[in-house]
């Protein structure tokens, strides 16, 4: 019997009311996340990919309860986060942290770097003031910054260095689980690899578990043990990383993978690209049946009528779930 997962997400929903008119009457619901389930084992990295508006960031926020889910359940280390008291939730939160996308917007410009990293320790009342100072120095060293950085301010640092500060801040309370929401997409190409290598190194050294949210599929393959693909609030395919990239089963995953450019002109000239027609429909008014059917090159009449459930089509021991009638 294997160990229970560190993070267990069941039927997670995050719905927002759409209000219109003078009386702000509710005229509809945006189902940003709609019935999402997955597990993440201790020490594992689950990659979450999809296009903007697919609900991947909302999922990350709902898992950490930065946004309160409107449906479903999240268990972290066995505890149902929705049933914890405020004080218990606060204590549990130390163990789960977030790395944000923008190293420019996520740091308070008036707070010194040391202050920013120490803040979570102050909030959670971790250690004595002297211990907190020592911890800040330790964290700066951990992310490859000079201890002197502590007294300086965010604007004195480059984008890559600021993201290191954001990572140090996220790791201050020694979390076991980290949600990284597009942690490299605001960074320059030459800097991205530095941050990705740092994240992998920290995972190995500290035994971290990641939910890695990104739209850069090559980076997701590099980082993740397993990958889940989202479309309009749902997971449409989930499998082991290499399995998903080598044998995509969902037509959306196939199109998404075929759209990734590769730095090889010969390969580019020879490749067959599946160019999808049209745009992603509005999550306030998703298509009936399969949500992807309006852009799907192989959709049939059944796809408009029946909502396909995620089912496992993988070999024994390597689950490969896909939500498609035709897979």
């Amino acid at each position, binding site marked *: 019997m294997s160990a229970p997962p560190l993070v267990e997400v069941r039927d997670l929903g995050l719905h927002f009311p759409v209000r219109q008119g003078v009386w702000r009457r509710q005229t509809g619901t945006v189902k940003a996340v709609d019935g999402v389930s997955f597990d993440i084992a201790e020490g594992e990295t689950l990659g979450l990919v999809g*296009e*903007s508006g697919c609900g991947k960031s909302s999922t990350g926020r709902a898992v950490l309860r930065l946004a309160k889910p409107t449906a479903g359940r999240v268990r972290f280390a066995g505890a149902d986060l929705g049933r914890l008291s405020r004080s218990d939730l606060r204590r549990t939160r130390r163990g789960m942290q977030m790395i944000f996308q923008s190293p420019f917007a996520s740091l308070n410009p008036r707070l010194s770097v040391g202050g920013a990293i120490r803040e979570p320790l102050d909030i959670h009342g971790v250690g004595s003031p002297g211990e907190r100072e020592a911890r800040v120095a330790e964290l700066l060293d951990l992310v490859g910054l000079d201890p002197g950085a502590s007294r300086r301010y965010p604007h004195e640092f*480059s*984008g*890559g*260095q600021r993201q290191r500060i954001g990572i140090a801040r996220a790791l201050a309370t020694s979390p076991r689980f980290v949600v990284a929401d597009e942690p490299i997409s605001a960074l*320059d*190409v*030459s*800097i*991205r*690899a*530095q941050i*990705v*290598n740092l994240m*992998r190194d920290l995972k190995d050294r500290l035994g971290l578990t990641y939910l890695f949210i990104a*739209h850069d*599929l*090559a*980076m997701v*393959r*590099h980082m*993740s*043990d397993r990958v889940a693909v989202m479309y309009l609030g749902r997971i449409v395919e989930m499998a082991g*990383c*290499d399995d998903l*990239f080598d044998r995509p089963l969902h037509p959306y995953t196939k*199109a*998404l*993978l*075929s*759209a*990734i*450019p*590769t*730095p*090889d*002109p*010969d*390969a*580019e*000239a020879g*490749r067959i*690209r599946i*160019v*999808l027609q049209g*745009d*992603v429909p509005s999550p306030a008014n998703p298509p009936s049946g399969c949500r992807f059917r309006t852009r799907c090159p192989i959709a049939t009449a059944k796809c408009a009528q029946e909502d396909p459930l995620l089912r496992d089509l993988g070999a024994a021991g390597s689950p490969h779930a896909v939500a498609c009638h035709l897979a």
Partner: protein
Amino acid sequence: MNSQERDARAALLDVRGLTTRIPVEGGGAVNPVNDVSFQMARGESLALVGESGSGKSMSALSILGLVPKPGRVIGGQARFDGRDLLALPANELRKVRGRGIGIVFQDPATSLNPVLTIGRQLTEGLREHFEMSGAARRVRAIELLSLVGIPDAKDRLASYPHEFSGGQRQRILIAMAIACEPSLLIADEPTTALDATIQAQIVELLKGLQKRLGMAILWITHDLALVAGLAERVAVMYAGSIVEMASARDLFQRPRHPYTLGLLKAMPRTDARHDSGESLAPIPGAPPDLRGEILGCAFAPRCSRAIERCGAERPPLLPVGPGHEAACIRSEEA
């Protein structure tokens, strides 16, 4: 006539020694574009690739006379169809923009006027550059919308920008840019704000239009991977200067500048198996602050091959193979 002069005559766009200066607060100035030279033939596609601050967008703005004030072009020439754009008076230059050179910018959300109909915005260029009747302009606008793949074009002319999706707005901007059938299209990060599947649509559209209309495209992008399927030739920019220029194939298969090589090694490949466990080779450090004086090669502080001489003299862009140039005194070893 020497060969250089002949090249210049044949070229659609011939940029030489382009240098732009922007004063900075608290005194001093930076040169975001520093001695940039490149040529483009008719119908050719060239990509300017670089990170933020490398000068790729500013190079295009400099050519077009659109450098934000108080910045200005302080040197060089940019001959388009034989005329030096940098020497043209503002009203002449405006005639070239939109007529001879079409422009597509990054953000479809802010490049369209929200209170004017799409039909009105599409025909603006035609009104400015051609003698055409209103009915003829309308026919042309419908034709353009269909050309860029907007369904029910006739009925959409009266729609406003917010009634279109991001991908569709980018298509409309492309339609506006090609309205006067320019011989050169400058596409500045045209797909950066778009999702992967929409990006693929827009790239296919632009490549199709290039073939159909025989226009040259100057792509400006930070995405080196995207460039491989996009352009025939690639120029890599770093800290305001072109550091390597070659055919796309040569650049990716035989990169000669350590910066290009570093960028390629720092990118994961989608076909690299996750279970291989290979780690990426990042380029250490960060691009230089242009406010400081850069003696020698701007990339030297981050370069593993740098020797003492690299910090002393700025390496010129020199031929390293047929149609392949690199600005590195150690490119032999690359």
